[in-house]
């Protein structure tokens, strides 16, 4: 299964400047693993040392904040859109 992943500006050094890349996986964890294979180093920016999503990263699967669903175990349907967004905006 393949998903389209929107990459925030601060991670585009890992994607050669691309704002959107594709990745495989049936869950968010698998999608991040797939991203890491093609864009080495990106996983450590999104996940902390214990493998959890960093607290200042928001991830959306098809417009739904994964914190409201299953976090890294959130299902990513084929053709889904995944957005990684810094959480420190607003207010």
């Amino acid at each position, binding site marked *: 299964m393949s998903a389209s992943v*929107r*990459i*925030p*500006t*601060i991670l*585009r*050094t890992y994607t050669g*400047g691309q*704002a959107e890349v594709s990745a495989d996986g049936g869950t968010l964890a698998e999608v991040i693993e797939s991203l890491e294979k093609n864009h080495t180093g990106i996983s450590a*920016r*999104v996940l*902390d040392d214990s493998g959890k999503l*960093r*607290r*200042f*990263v*928001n991830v*959306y699967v098809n417009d739904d*904040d994964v*914190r*409201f669903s299953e976090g890294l175990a959130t299902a990513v349907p084929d053709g889904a859109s995944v*957005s990684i*967004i*810094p*959480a*420190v*905006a*607003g*207010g």
Partner: protein
Amino acid sequence: MAVQTVAGTTTPQDASPANPHGDAFGPAAALSCRECGARYPLTPVFACLECFGPLEVAYDLPLGDPEHLRKQIEAGPANIWRYAPLLPVPADVADKQNLHPGWTKLVKADNLARELGITGGLHIKDDSGNPTHSFKDRVVAIALEAARTFGLTTLSCSSTGNLAGAVGAAAARAGFRSCVFIPDDLEQGKVVMAAVYGGDLVAIKGTYDDVNRFCSELIGDPAGEGWGFVNVNLRPYYGEGSKTLAYEIAEQLGWRLPDNLVIPIASGSQLTKIDKGLKELIALGLVEDKPYKIFGAQAEGCSPVSAAFKAGHDVVRPVKPDTIAKSLAIGNPADGPYVLDIARRTGGAIEDVTDEQIVDAIKLLARTEGIFAETAGGVTVGVLRKLIETGQLDPAAETVVFNTGDGLKTLDAVSPTTGPTATISPTLAAFREAGLA
């Protein structure tokens, strides 16, 4: 020097990096990550490249004779620019085209104190007196100057209403284009106030958090190039404007700190920067070093930080807001973890009140002090009352409670239960019959 890699990103530096804009940022030395401490040049970036943590302005503050600095401040203009030596702005900022906000009233609230049983003194920092009638003019003024320095030409934001008006007005005064984004369910007063300045106002179908997400994506898109989102890519500068609330309170109290401060929480930025300002005042010797307690106030219908505080958590689980206090309706507060840290460090607390209690508190403040607060002010006053009733706030201590906006913006909240005492014919008999004589 910064190494530009992709538009909008810079590499972290170990020490204070060289800044490409000379002294345009006054005493500011660098951007520093609150999470990991990585330092970056003063550029329009907001999240740490290493850990996504929030960046904030780090300073080389003017350590020296506090008396000299106090006199310099007191001789300054009656707005936030009297504190320019402590802000990331150029020394001549007061001569530039902006709204010159701040220096709002600190009202001694003896009537409300009596009503609440406060004996140690109560003051209301009434920020409804700003140019667009909310505290947002303070933060926008700093962000505007940063945008000017960076050569950004469009001023923008995600907003729960007050900020949209403040950005629209500041942009109009400074000759910038503005394009601001709001949820599509805001109070009419705020929508009109945001639109009247002539910039673009875009209502997004969704909650504030949806709007915020949209803006965070727009900033990384070519469509957002050259834009200064005051609370996204200019957020490190923007937040510093809230420090001026701390400075003003201390100066208005005769250069001393209160015991308690009751502050509303939306994203939590304001509360964290007021704490930063208080710490700076102490570090600079402008006030005596003494303990103070910071209390956070939320609406029950959007209380993720209050819930985390009560549960003993150090992370905030996002919620979907449902409250009349729309200016505080941020379900995923960016600075929530830091608010928790500050409330615990200072010995304060975080509480929340129902919509009914918010309306009651708006009326209480109006009835006792002649101040008509917006819903956020109802939240702080309502929480103050609750903190006293539950024994969490010492009524014998001196307290400052914040009103951050004007009640005329949120008439919808009180209009269902507020109106004429009687509607009568223009005759004395009718007046007597109504029982008002």
